[in-house]
Each structure stands twice: as structure tokens, then as C-alpha cells.
């Protein structure tokens, strides 16, 4: 299985990578903004995408739109600190399968990814 982690923070990308579990994913790719995420999705066709919202160049909501145009069945988990209901509703309305509020723990990331894969 393949995982794509999209976050502008190196420390967050590495933390999510550790939490997701290397044994679960044979390939883990990363992107630092929405624009690169769309390119990486096209290139690697990951089974799961974790997506931050606030990023430079292209935000996560715009990237979700473009990824779902490529594959309407893409499994996208939003991992964001934006705590207003509007952002969470908007992400789900656009096609994200889950919304995880930062700060996250290793356990919460692991469980959220497992939930998406089991659905």
C-alpha cells in the first residue's frame, strides 16, 4: 500500500510517517504543498492521502478538489489545526473521508488511517 503525506512542516510529515506505520505501507511519499500533492498523487496513485489545509502555493482544500478529479474514490484524511466547523464541513463536502484536528498524537493518526482503510 502507498501513503502520501501532505504538510508544509517537515516535523509533522515525519511524525505522521512514524504514526502511520511503515509495516502498513510499502511506499510513503511526501509533499510540502497542495500543488506538489496533486503532482505526487498523479505519479504514485497512493491508497491514502493525509492532507494539511494551510499551506503555501496551494491550500489543502484546492488540492482535494484536483485529486478527486483524478480519482473520485481517493481516500483523503484531512489533518488540520483549523478548528472551525466550517472548514471541517467544507473538507468533507469536497470529498475528504475524515478530519483530524491538530495537535495529533501518534495513536490518533494511526487510528484515523486504519478507520479510512477499513471503510
Amino acid at each position: 500500500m502507498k501513503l502520501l503525506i501532505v504538510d508544509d512542516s517537515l516535523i509533522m510529515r515525519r511524525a505522521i510517517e512514524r504514526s502511520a506505520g511503515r509495516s502498513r505501507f510499502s511506499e510513503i511519499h511526501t509533499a510540502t504543498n497542495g500543488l506538489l500533492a496533486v503532482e505526487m498523487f498523479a505519479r504514485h496513485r497512493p491508497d491514502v492521502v493525509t492532507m494539511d489545509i494551510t499551506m503555501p502555493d496551494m491550500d489543502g482544500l484546492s488540492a482535494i478538489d484536483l485529486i478527486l478529479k483524478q480519482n473520485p474514490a481517493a481516500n483523503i484524511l484531512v489533518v488540520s489545526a483549523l478548528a472551525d466547523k466550517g472548514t471541517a464541513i467544507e473538507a468533507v463536502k469536497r470529498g475528504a473521508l475524515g478530519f483530524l484536528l491538530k495537535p495529533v498524537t501518534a495513536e490518533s493518526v494511526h487510528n484515523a488511517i486504519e478507520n479510512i482503510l477499513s471503510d
Partner: protein
Amino acid sequence: MSISFETEQELAVFIGTVGRYFQTVGGVLPDFLAPTLETVLPARLDCTGYMPVSGRLEGWIALSLPSSLLRTLLDRLGEDRHDEAAQLDLVAEITSTLTSNARAHFGEHLRVAPPLASSASEFPDELPAPPLSFRLPFQLQGADAYLLVALQR
């Protein structure tokens, strides 16, 4: 100088977000000290994250932390990189998280931009010093730190 009612409410919001963050990631609640009003930028600690804010409120929010505390937090995250780049990345991420979490209170009126971070000697040119801001000092695991909220209506 007295703190206005709205500022007190904002202060409570940020005390809540700072507390939640460090309890989740650091495992303990910070000890909050008395907040102060600032008319000039206070001295920055080793690493400072800045988050520009626009919308109903304009300005920025900054979080200043010592290296010792950032190294401890990196450890708690299971991170083996402790260099300055990792510390600046983490302080930017924490600042972004605290500011973005505050949207639970401020709603979409609080528009946020990607965070910046700098070491103590630097200050980004694009961030003007605010005429008035409040500083929320706190202590965590024996280290002094503070959040600076520089927002204007």
C-alpha cells in the same frame, strides 16, 4: 494599562489553545503567568514562530520558545532531529496550530496564512511591529516561553 473585555476573551481563547496543545504533545499543562500589554516587541527567545492573520482581525501571532523546550518536544514527538532547522520547523507548526485552533472561537473571520519562523536575532521584514499587543508568558518543564498576540480590529 487595563485590558479591554474583548481582549480578555481573546486571552482566554489563547490560554485554552496553548494549554490544550502542550497537554496533548508535551504531556503537561503549562503554568500561565500574568499577561502583559506591550507597546514594543519583547526580546525573542531562541526560536519564534509567526502567523499572519487577516480578516475581521489584522496582525499576527507569535510564539517564542527556548531551544531546550523545543528539543524536549521533539523528543516527545519521537523525532531524532534536534537541529535548528527542526526547532524552527516545530515552532512554526505550533504557532500555526495555536492560531488555527483559535478559529473555533473566531470562526472564519480569522483568516490565516502559512507560518514563518526565525531565530532570536532575526525578525521578518514583512511583519510590522504592532502598536499594542498582549504577551502571555508561561512556563513549561522549567522553561520560560511566551505567546504574543498582536491583533487589531
